């Protein structure tokens, strides 16, 4: 097991590879460069923290999304599609009207990193970017285990879930840390009962974009969004409500490490 760590998109990315032996030394270095490039490409196009990014120019009214690069247009189109699929709970528009794709591009970068690693012949790996995890294969013929952070104490775990050997994704969204990209589109949390407000949602899915977007939507939309997500997508969910209660569905329970 080897671990490679680098910073991207304002967070830290950890990549675990089980067997690099099939990739020659220079090949591994080049592969990791390509992985970094996946994050850099999307960040350079879509970061609102970089004044020279395309999306920052869109925000200042200097560029229309229609005239932006394909990277931006594709991400925007995907975000609009997710807005429809989440009944408007996930949205690429900030309350002030600025197009913000930060809820999507990190997951897309993680997915791109996975493609790069597989193309290089690395079949067993885990990519963790800021707490969103994509796994493929499994170490030692077993499975990857991902701990779910306790929002009340992030040094503790609520549970551990397995994934592998098929590709699996675990994404967690919360209102506690850096949740600024979560916009509560239809109803503000103030209008909901604590029992319906989700402070943290963990979603298990086959792909990281689905997992990340739906985790974001569930935190933004509360219990109604949680039910809609499980009704319409084959996902596992663990939700932590504002009153401290937990809810999980069968797909997640089956994957819990006992």
């Amino acid at each position: 097991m080897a671990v490679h760590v680098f910073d991207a998109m304002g967070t830290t990315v950890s990549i675990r590879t089980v067997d690099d032996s099939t990739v020659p030394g220079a090949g591994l270095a080049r592969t990791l460069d390509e992985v970094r490039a996946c994050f850099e490409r999307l960040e350079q196009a879509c970061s609102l923290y970089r004044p020279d990014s395309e999306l920052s120019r869109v925000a200042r009214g200097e560029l229309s999304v229609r005239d932006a690069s394909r990277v931006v247009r594709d991400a925007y189109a995907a975000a609009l599609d997710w807005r429809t699929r989440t009944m408007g709970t996930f949205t690429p528009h900030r309350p002030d009207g600025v197009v913000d794709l930060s809820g999507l591009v990190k997951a897309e970068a993680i997915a791109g990193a996975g493609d790069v690693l597989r193309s290089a012949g690395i079949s067993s790996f885990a990519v963790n970017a800021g707490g969103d995890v994509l796994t493929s294969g499994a170490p030692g013929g077993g499975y990857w285990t991902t701990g779910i952070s306790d929002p009340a104490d992030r040094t503790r775990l609520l549970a551990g879930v397995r994934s592998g050997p098929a590709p699996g994704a675990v994404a967690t969204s919360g209102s506690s840390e850096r949740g600024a990209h979560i916009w509560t589109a239809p109803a503000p949390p103030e209008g909901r009962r604590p029992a319906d407000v989700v402070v943290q949602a963990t979603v298990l899915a086959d792909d990281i974009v689905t997992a990340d977007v739906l985790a974001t939507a569930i935190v933004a939309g509360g219990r109604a969004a949680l039910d809609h997500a499980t009704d319409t997508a084959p996902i596992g969910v663990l939700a932590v409500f504002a009153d401290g209660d937990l809810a999980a569905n069968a797909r997640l329970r089956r994957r819990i490490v006992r």
Partner: protein
Amino acid sequence: MRRSSAVILVSASTVTLGAGWLLGSGEAFPRGDAPTVAPTATPGRSADETGSATSDPSEPPGPVVVDGAIVDTKYGTVQVQVVIEADVIVDVVALKLTDSSETSVEVSARAAPILREEILAAQSSVVENVSGATYTSEAYRTSVQAALDAVGFEG
């Protein structure tokens, strides 16, 4: 677990009751394309009445759980599960319903309350990754993930 033909008939009837309840008609036997079924051992009981039914303590057998047939109506696919205790329906659980957009949904896919004690088994020593709300590079340094990564470097 006991399964008799009488029990199956009960469940088939309840499917229809469930369908009528779903369509909001309040009728036990809705008009139109709803399926027709044979009369049953416990006619006239509705889903609403069964929730409060209690079992006779003199009846030793435990509850019998039967999944009703999957019924296609013009509103979508409907399936219910009935729990029968001492020949009385004590619970009706919707397994498959139609949602507001009239597509069939798996009710069992939904999240239900779970206790912390039920899931808390994993310690950080047995996981490779931690999934949590997005942390900054700053927050990463004091995270469990950073500790796991440091162990990974050594291993």
